[in-house]
């Protein structure tokens, strides 16, 4: 599981426009379950996701990974614990690459290159055989019905297609945790339901899923195991989904 202890994130600390996005958040993300962060925009959901996904460091507090991710980290003790808040940048990137698959709200695909290359991109620095990665990428695109766009430029796709490519990219390194930020923001009802169905499939594969959303289709979905409500950077309520 992922343990958060008193995590706070402030921007522009000490200046007049100091802004605290996440305030004193403590919670546990259960392994192999789907956790949804629910709340209006500005509630700190996105910031919390970036902190968990090793993309930013909290101003204070600790984030600890228990038994998650490849065992081959030098820092992991016998209990399989990794405290990411104290890791140097170098190791953080390794964890980011192998443990987490991030699906951004605005997808953040690299423009001007092909869909296939976008999906393979996270695997480039690992030095894995190009042919193997390519096959895996094509399989993922096939799984999400976008393999016919494999050699098209990303700029030419529709919103839903881009999102599926973004999901495929998040999965290329076979991460154990999938983090999605407002995944249904650009999707209609049908595609949103399809997305939640996919999430169910990932859960069946043993992955941990963390989604931030203010879309009822997501937090009211049968697939969601735990819903955590946030407002103004704080957790207001957390409990099992209905």
């Amino acid at each position, binding site marked *: 599981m992922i343990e958060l202890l008193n995590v706070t994130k402030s921007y522009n600390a000490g200046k007049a426009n100091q802004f605290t996005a996440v305030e004193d958040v403590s919670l546990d993300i259960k392994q192999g379950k789907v956790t949804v962060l629910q709340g209006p925009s500005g509630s700190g959901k996105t910031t919390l996701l*970036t902190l968990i996904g090793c993309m930013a460091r909290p101003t204070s507090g600790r984030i600890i990974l228990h038994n998650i991710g490849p065992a081959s980290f030098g820092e992991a003790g016998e209990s399989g614990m990794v405290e990411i808040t104290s890791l140097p940048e170098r190791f953080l990137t390794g964890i980011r690459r192998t443990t987490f698959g991030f699906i951004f709200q605005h997808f953040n695909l690299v423009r001007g290159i092909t869909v296939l290359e976008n999906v393979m991109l996270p695997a480039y*620095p690992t030095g894995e055989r190009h042919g193997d990665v390519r096959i895996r990428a094509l399989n993922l695109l096939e799984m999400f019905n976008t393999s016919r766009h494999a050699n098209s430029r990303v700029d030419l796709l529709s919103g839903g297609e881009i999102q599926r490519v973004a999901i495929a990219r998040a999965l290329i390194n076979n991460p154990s945790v999938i983090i999605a930020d407002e995944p249904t923001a650009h999707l209609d009802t049908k595609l949103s339901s399809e997305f939640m169905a996919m999430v169910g499939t990932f859960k069946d594969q043993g992955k941990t899923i963390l989604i931030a959303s203010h879309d009822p289709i997501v937090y009211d979905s049968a697939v969601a195991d735990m819903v955590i409500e946030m407002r103004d950077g704080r957790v207001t309520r957390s409990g099992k989904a209905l």
Partner: protein
Amino acid sequence: MNRPLERHRNIVDFALSSLLRRKGKNISLLLVYTLIVFIIASIIFFVQALKREAGLVLKEAPDMVVQRLVAGRHDPIPVAFAEKIAAIRGVSSVTPRLWGYYYDAAIGANYTIMATDNNPPEPESIIIGSGVARVRRLAKGDMMTFRAYDGGINLFEVQDILPYASELMAADMVIMDRSDFRTLFNFPDGVATDLSVTVRNPRELTTIAAKIVRQFPDTRPILKSEILRTYNSIFDWRGGMLVVVLGVAVLAFIIFAWDKATGLSAEERKEIGILKSIGWETSDVLLLKFWEGAVISLSAFLFGVILAYGHVFFFSASLFEQALKGWAVLYPRFKLTPAADPYQLAVLFFLTVIPYTVTTIIPSWRAATIDPDAAMRS
């Protein structure tokens, strides 16, 4: 499975994709870069080949040439000096040289007229350089007219034409026997243009030269080492035109590097943030930027040098002809034997590749090290 190598190849792949996104801009950049390398490498090859040729051929130049100066100007030297100089210890022979210039008003060309005792042509016949033959469209057996100093016209028959391969030293030559020379120029007996001195021991040249000057203070000896040195410093980088060319090249390199060094656009910064967010380390991003720079500069260098070699040694540096010809009407056509100065080529390599590559990496450094979240927000 060779991980480091595969990682490099992957990053090169992406670097190439990245460059291909802006095909037009990067291709024109490559072309201009190649052009500059081409010009400088052509100069390096050309000068090196010419210097080498000069060195090899002028080894046979006279050990010493003694000129006479009157009122600071070059004046014919009395042949009587020759006997006295020949008497100096260490001198093995002194030969008076009879040569001069002739301006052909019909076409505006300058010829060098040389009189020789060594296999001279028949009387009233000349042996001409292939450049003269070309410019006057003369063949063996044709007649060539010269205006004599007394206003009269002298006719000479072309007995022979020097081979094409000798253009570099004798393209503009007109060789005749001594009496024809003196008649043509009304050159007085008893004097010569200068004296060619041969010494037994080359190491004594300076001493002998000093003795000559002591004995004949109005003379000026020119040593073979000085002749060779003139051609060793030919086309020196301090020469006017080459300073301009070099300056333009350096300026161009600076402009390219500047374009890269003045920071990244917001889009590039965001993209680095994206790469970091999907798991690329700082070192991966910097390697990417390195390859983006290296692909262009390396290609430009290789292309430029290969093209320069072809230009200078297969096309006789035809692009330089206009510059070298200047106002001359008669310009020698020569095919240079290939030669290269590896030191200068190495300097060119470093100048081409390193600054550009470095300035591609440095502005990315900061973006590559900050948190991906911050990079994507900005």
